C-alpha cells in the first residue's frame, strides 16, 4: 500500500486506457507544435515597478474601459488581490516576500499554456492554440458551457454573466490581433516603461530567464515559472522569492489534457472498445434467445 499518488495515476491511466498513446500536442491544423519556437513573454517581477500601465494599455487595446491612464496611478488597488475578469484581461497585484518583507508587484493574465486544458475541454473547438503561441477564443463557435473556466488551472477565463444575448468568454488574447512578430508586440509589452516584460520565442525567454538568474543569483529565485509547469506556458515569470507566496499556483509538470485524453482516447480507440461491447451484447442477446428463463433463479 505504499504506492505514491503519482505512480497510482500512471497505473490507473494505463489500466483504464491501455491502448492510449501519449501524443504530443497538436494544433487545430493537426500539426504538432514545437513550443520552443512559439512566442512568449517573460515577466520579470524583480524589475516591475507596479505602474499598472500594462492594465491601461490592455484595456485600451481591447476597448474594455475608457478610464484615462492617470487613473491607473492609484496604488490603493493593491490593498486587495484582484483577479482578471470580463472587463480586465490583466491586473497587477502586490505581494511581499515574507523573508525580507520587501513588496513586489506581479501582472497576471492568461498564461497561454503549451498544452491548454481549456482547449482540450472545449466541446466545439472555440478555443485553439495558434501556431505562434496564443490561445485564441472564437465567440461565434462557443456554446457558452463554461467548461473551459472549470478546466483552467490558472483560473483565468472570465464570463459575461450579465449579457443575456451574446455572452462571451473573456481573457487575454496575447494581442494576436496585432499580428505578433519581433516588431509587433502585445500592447502591455510595448508600453512597459521598465522592460519588466520581454517578448520573444519561448526558448529565447527561457535562456534569458536563466541568464538573469545566473548573473544575479542574489536577486532572483532560481526558478523560471512556466518553463515546465503544466507542460510549459507561453508566459513565464521571474521573481525574487518563492512563487508559493504569489498568485501563481504550485503545479506539477504534467500537461493537464493528458489526464483526460488518455482515458478518453483509450475508451474510444478507433471505436474498437464500443464496437466490441456492441458485438458482445449482440452475441449474448442472440445466444440467450431460446433459453428464455421466466423462472426465479434464486
Amino acid at each position, binding site marked *: 500500500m505504499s504506492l505514491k499518488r503519482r505512480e497510482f495515476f500512471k497505473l490507473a491511466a494505463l489500466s483504464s486506457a491501455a491502448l492510449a498513446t501519449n501524443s504530443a500536442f497538436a494544433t487545430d491544423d493537426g500539426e504538432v507544435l514545437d513550443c520552443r519556437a512559439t512566442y512568449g513573454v517573460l515577466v520579470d517581477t524583480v524589475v516591475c515597478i507596479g505602474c499598472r500601465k500594462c492594465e491601461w494599455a490592455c484595456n485600451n487595446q481591447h476597448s474594455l474601459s475608457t478610464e484615462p491612464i492617470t487613473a491607473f496611478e492609484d496604488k490603493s488597488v493593491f490593498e486587495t488581490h484582484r483577479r482578471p475578469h470580463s472587463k480586465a484581461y490583466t491586473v497587477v497585484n502586490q505581494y511581499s516576500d515574507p523573508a525580507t518583507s520587501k513588496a513586489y508587484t506581479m501582472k497576471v493574465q492568461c498564461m497561454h499554456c503549451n498544452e491548454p486544458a481549456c482547449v482540450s475541454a472545449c466541446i466545439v473547438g472555440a478555443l485553439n492554440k495558434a501556431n505562434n503561441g496564443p490561445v485564441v477564443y472564437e465567440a461565434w463557435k462557443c456554446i*457558452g458551457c463554461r*467548461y473551459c473556466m472549470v478546466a483552467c488551472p490558472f483560473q483565468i477565463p472570465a464570463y459575461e454573466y450579465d449579457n443575456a444575448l451574446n455572452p462571451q468568454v473573456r481573457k487575454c488574447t496575447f494581442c494576436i490581433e496585432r499580428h505578433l512578430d519581433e516588431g509587433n508586440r502585445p500592447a502591455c509589452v510595448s508600453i512597459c516603461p521598465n522592460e519588466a516584460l520581454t517578448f520573444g520565442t519561448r526558448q529565447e525567454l527561457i535562456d534569458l530567464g536563466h541568464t538573469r538568474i545566473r548573473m544575479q543569483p542574489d536577486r532572483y529565485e532560481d526558478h523560471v515559472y512556466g518553463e515546465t509547469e503544466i507542460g510549459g506556458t507561453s508566459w513565464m515569470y521571474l521573481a525574487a522569492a518563492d512563487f508559493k507566496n504569489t498568485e501563481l499556483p504550485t503545479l506539477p509538470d504534467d500537461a493537464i489534457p493528458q489526464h483526460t485524453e488518455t482515458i478518453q482516447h483509450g475508451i474510444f480507440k478507433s471505436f474498437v472498445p464500443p464496437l466490441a461491447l456492441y458485438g458482445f451484447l449482440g452475441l449474448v442477446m442472440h445466444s440467450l434467445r431460446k433459453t428464455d428463463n421466466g423462472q426465479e433463479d434464486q
Partner: protein
Amino acid sequence: MAHHHEVPVPIKAPYFTSGTKVLFAIMLAGLAVFVYRFIAGLGAVTNLDDQYPWGIWIAIDVASGVALAAGGFTTAALADIFHKEKYHVIVRPALLTALLGYTFVAIGVLTDLGRYYNMWHVALPGFWQGNSVLFEVGMCVMIYLTVLYIEFLPIVVERFKGKVNLPGILGGFNKLIESFLSIADKTLGRFVSLFIIAGVVLSCLHQSSLGTLMVIVPSKLHPLWYTPISPLLFLLSAISVGFPMVIFESILASRSFKLKPELSVLSSIARYTPVLLGIYFALKIGDITLRNAWPYVSEMSTQSIMWLVEIVGGVLLPILILASHRLRNTVGGLFTAASLVVFGVALNRINVFLIAYKPLYATKTYFPSFMEILVTAGFICALVLLYRAFVMVFPVITVPVDENGNHIKHDDRINVSNFSRAE
C-alpha cells in the same frame, strides 16, 4: 402463476389530485424563471460567477439526471439482452423514466448554456473536438435520446395504430400519422433489438465519460473525489442505481394509482443491488487507500462530512438493508433502501461537481440562488407530471385487467381472489 390478464395498459385515474396541483404550481413558477433566464441572462438568475462557473443546473439537472435515468439501460440489458423475461413488466416504466429524464437533461443543459442558440454546433462535424470529454458526453446523450424515442415508438404504435383521431383542424394529419405508425409498426420489430443494444453501449460510454469530466481539474478537486478511476466509478454507480430507481418509482406510482406494487419482481431485481454496490464500495475504498486519501476522510470539513454521508447513507446502509432477505421482501424495506441508493448517487454527483470543486483564490463558496432552485424544482415537478400523463395515455404500467380491459385497483382486488398474490 400464469397471469394472462396482466398487461401494460393506460392507467385510468383522475389526473388532478391535490398532490398534482401542488406540483403544477411549482412547475409554473419554475417555468417563469426559466423564461426570465433567457431574457435577463445567467447573471440575473444564478449565483454563478468566474470562480464557480457550474452550479446545480449542471450538478443536479444534468449530472444527477443522467445517473438516475440509468434504469432505462440496465433494465433493457437485463430483460431484453439477458432475456430475463419476468422483468419485462418493469422495462416500459424504466424506458419512460429514461426518456423523460434525458429530455430534461437536454432542457437543463439548454438552460445553463450561455450561448444556447449555438447548441446545434455540437452536432456539426466542422465543430467536433474529439479531445473534449464534454463532446463525448454530449454526442452520446444526443444519440441515446434519439434511441430512447425510437425504443418508445412501439408503445405509441400499440396505443394509437388504427385509432388516430385528432380533433378539429388537426384531423387533417390523421392519415399522415396513421401511415407513419403503420410503417413504424412494420419495420421496428426487425430493428428494435439493434437499438436496444446501441442504447446500452451509448449509456456505458456517456455514464463513464461523465466521470471523466472532472479529471481535468487535478488542482481544483478535493482528493476524496479526484481519482483517475472516476469514469469507472461513475459507470458502476449508474449501473447500481438503475434498479433502485425503478423500484423507487414503481412503489411511488403504485401508491399514487392505488395499485398493488409488483413486490415479487421488485424484490427479485433488488438482489443485484447489494452485489453491484458492494463492488462499487470496494473500488471506492481501494481507491482511497491507494491514493493515501484516508486522512481527508477524518478532516471533519464540509467535504469529509459529505463524503461520509454519501458512503454510509448512500452505499453501506442500502447494502445492509437489501442483503437482508426479510427486509428485501417488504415494501417498506425496499423503498427505504431504493431511496437511499437514489439519494446516494445523486449526492455523489453533487459532491463531485459542486462540493469537491474548489477554485483557486476562492473568496466565497457557491450556494444556489432561490431562482436556480426553483428552476430545478420545476423540472422535477414537470417530470413527475409528464410521467403521470404518459402512463395515463400510453400502455406503460403492467396491471391486472378484468375481462372488459379495465384494470383492477388495489382496493378492489381484495375481492378478486384470481389476481391475489403472495405479498
